[in-house]
């Protein structure tokens, strides 16, 4: 059968040709891109020979610096130093984690952030055939190699010239290569971003549906000078304005729902339009229009317990346990996982400001440590009720200094946890890399992390139905500061009301019974 393989290949060729034809330049014809290229840096130099400002633009973004100053409290964030409840932290694991850096070669502090040729254009602009392998500090495979190490599996050398000649716009796939896989696997972190969006059906996401609008990430996250708007650290939680007209100059975040739909988007039913539009004063669009996350068949991690990591099977070897669907729920390297699919979000007031527990924050280990805190409350004009994923972790901390610790895990050496299963060594190495004081005494502490839910927008027919919040134990059961008909109501009033009705009923029944009795007695 020539069948499927050939058809697929033809399809890919036609599609690539098509996407190339949409532009005014066919990169395949450029002399500069004929190669051969020995390294990613060589390709970048070729790109920069025409796109002279591109590298400098990229270098001004968080995709490059992995640094970010939180406008909420001035704290220094960014992937470089931030903590989470998943893989915990980047430091000491750079060669592994930096496969998601838009650069080549960041494996330790010696990385030169001013070298333009270190910018990786292909990470975002490839249209296939290009993978930055974890462990290679952002490089793809330049020659055939065993990967992952000691796995017996091999990856072929990257055809850099071919990839360079077929560059294009960013796509769900290129963005997703990193943003789907945060936390060490498909769908792990976000819950509303995973590889199911690459071929999304309409039910999963109306905007990104392959058979529908087929949006790329950049259709909403419209970048200017390589600065991609829309961040989960400083979000636009409320955008009470009409839609932006094409070409309109605006300082507004172009990634909000309202930037296209406006803040009063409901029109269809006279009975409901006004009422639904009034809901936008209280609710984020996402609250109703994303009925659940992890809906595409890829589970997200709702919990991760590092304290159980390091167990061996009867042969003394690390092992994995899987659930009925074949998803890993225990891994000797990582501990126990709680997975979730089709998860109903939690809801909370959120004004876009988030603050973080960082490596030097003193924690209270007697309670669940909030790795991040979403701010805002009822009455705050910038706050709306948002759907969120609440993740529960259990991770190492320094018992004496009362700080969360970053373990060295991922790059093969004598201290990495995934290769030695030795917490003291891994934590000491991690602390050395982050530069934080480490007493040598550690334990595990419960942590919590909040993730905003904003992708996987369902078709309007599947929006959250009224009764799901307007009921006693509905989705908004725990949200304070609003009166929700069907959920609230003075219990005293209801009790008094029903008692009054009951008394009236009893009264008339007794009255009626007396009439009947006296009537027959009088006979």
């Amino acid at each position, binding site marked *: 059968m020539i069948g499927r393989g050939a058809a697929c290949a033809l399809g890919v060729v036609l599609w690539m040709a098509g996407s190339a034809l949409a532009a005014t330049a066919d990169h395949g014809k450029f002399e500069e891109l004929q190669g051969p290229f020995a390294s990613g840096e060589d390709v970048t130099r070729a790109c920069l020979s025409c796109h002279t400002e591109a590298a400098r633009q990229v270098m001004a973004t968080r995709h490059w610096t992995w640094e970010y100053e939180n406008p909420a409290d001035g704290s220094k964030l960014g992937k470089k130093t931030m903590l989470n409840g998943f893989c915990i932290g980047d430091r000491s694991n750079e060669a592994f984690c930096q496969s998601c850096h838009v650069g080549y070669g960041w494996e330790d502090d010696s990385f030169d952030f001013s070298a333009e040729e270190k910018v990786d254009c292909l990470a975002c602009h490839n249209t296939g055939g290009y993978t930055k392998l974890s462990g290679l500090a952002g490089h793809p495979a330049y020659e055939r190699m065993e990967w992952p190490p000691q796995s017996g599996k091999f990856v072929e050398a990257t055809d850099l010239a071919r990839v360079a000649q077929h560059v294009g716009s960013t796509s769900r796939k290129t963005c997703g290569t990193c943003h789907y896989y945060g936390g060490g696997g498909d769908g792990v972190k976000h819950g509303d971003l995973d590889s199911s969006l690459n071929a999304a059906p309409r039910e999963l996401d109306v905007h990104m549906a392959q058979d529908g609008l087929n949006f790329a990430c950049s259709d909403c996250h419209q970048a200017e000078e390589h600065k991609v708007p829309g961040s989960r650290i400083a979000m636009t939680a409320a955008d009470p304005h009409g839609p932006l007209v094409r070409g309109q100059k605006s300082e507004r975040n172009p990634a909000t729902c309202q930037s296209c739909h406006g803040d009063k988007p409901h029109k269809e039913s006279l*009975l*409901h339009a*006004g*009422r639904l*539009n*009034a809901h936008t*004063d209280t609710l984020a669009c996402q609250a109703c229009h994303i009925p659940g996350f992890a809906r595409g068949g890829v589970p997200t991690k709702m919990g991760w317990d590092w304290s159980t990591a390091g167990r061996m099977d009867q042969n003394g070897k690390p092992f994995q346990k899987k659930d009925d669907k074949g998803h890993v729920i225990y891994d000797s390297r990582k501990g126990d996982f709680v997975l979730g699919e089709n998860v109903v979000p939690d809801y909370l007031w959120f004004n876009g400001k988030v603050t973080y527990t960082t490596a030097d924050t003193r924690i209270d280990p007697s309670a669940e440590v909030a790795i991040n805190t979403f701010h805002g409350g009822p009455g705050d004009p910038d706050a709306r009720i948002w759907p969120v994923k609440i993740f529960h972790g259990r991770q190492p901390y320094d018992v004496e200094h009362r700080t969360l610790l970053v373990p060295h895990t991922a790059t093969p050496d004598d201290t990495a946890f995934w290769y030695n299963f030795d917490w003291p060594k891994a934590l000491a190495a991690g602390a050395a890399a982050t530069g934080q004081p480490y007493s040598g005494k550690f334990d595990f502490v419960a942590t919590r992390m909040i993730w905003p839910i904003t992708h996987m927008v369902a078709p309007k027919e599947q929006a959250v*139905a*009224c*009764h799901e919040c*307007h*009921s*006693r134990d509905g989705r908004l059961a725990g949200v304070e500061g609003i*009166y929700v*008909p*069907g*959920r*609230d*109501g*003075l219990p005293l*009033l*209801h009790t*008094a*009301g*029903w008692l*009054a*009705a009951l008394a*009236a*009923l009893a*009264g*008339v029944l007794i*009255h*009626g019974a*007396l*009439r*009947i009795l*006296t*009537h027959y007695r*009088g006979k």
Partner: protein
Amino acid sequence: MNEHRPVRRIYVFKRYERFWHWSQAVLIVFMMLTGFEIAGAYENFGFRRAVEYHTLTAWALLVLWAFTIFWQFTTGEWRQYIPTLKKVDAMVRYYAWGIFRGAPHPYHKTALKKHNPLQRLAYLALLAVVSPVIWVSGLFYLFYAWWGDYGVDRWLELEWVATAHTAGAFMMLVFFIVHVYLTTTGHTVFAHIKAMITGWEDEEPEGDPARSGRSLQGDDDPARIGMP
């Protein structure tokens, strides 16, 4: 039914009045059903449908009232609701005592005075207290979406509106229960209801305890029909 009806019949409720009463009855019962569901008392239609129905019924009732107010004033029937305290004590005594003894109804109903003093007071309370509570709160509730445009949200809370509306609804429920029961207190159990359906009510001869004492047996008692 009975050609040689010995009692005098009076035409108490005109056609529009009967139409008004029964359509209002249906609308109010339906509004109670949907309203208490919206308040979270139980589940029946589902919240969304309940709100839709409640809203549509509210509009229907408003239209009905517009016509009815017009009718009340063009026909002068509004005078029927002018309250009086005369004979109220007699009415109270009758319901509390006389009715069990087979005493005659102290109020003599005529086409011009169709409501007894207690009724007048009850309807006045309904019109002056319950209705305003329900309608004012209900309209604020209905137009909640526009509060922001007129700055209403600066001085009013949805919770107060909902509380007032629910309180009004309970008052209406109590009225409804008592009202339905009192329809059975005519000279026969179904006399009042029949009057509200046909418009005609048998006029009860005054001061005949023997006869009125039997009224509870109802229309289906052949022994009663045609008795002087």
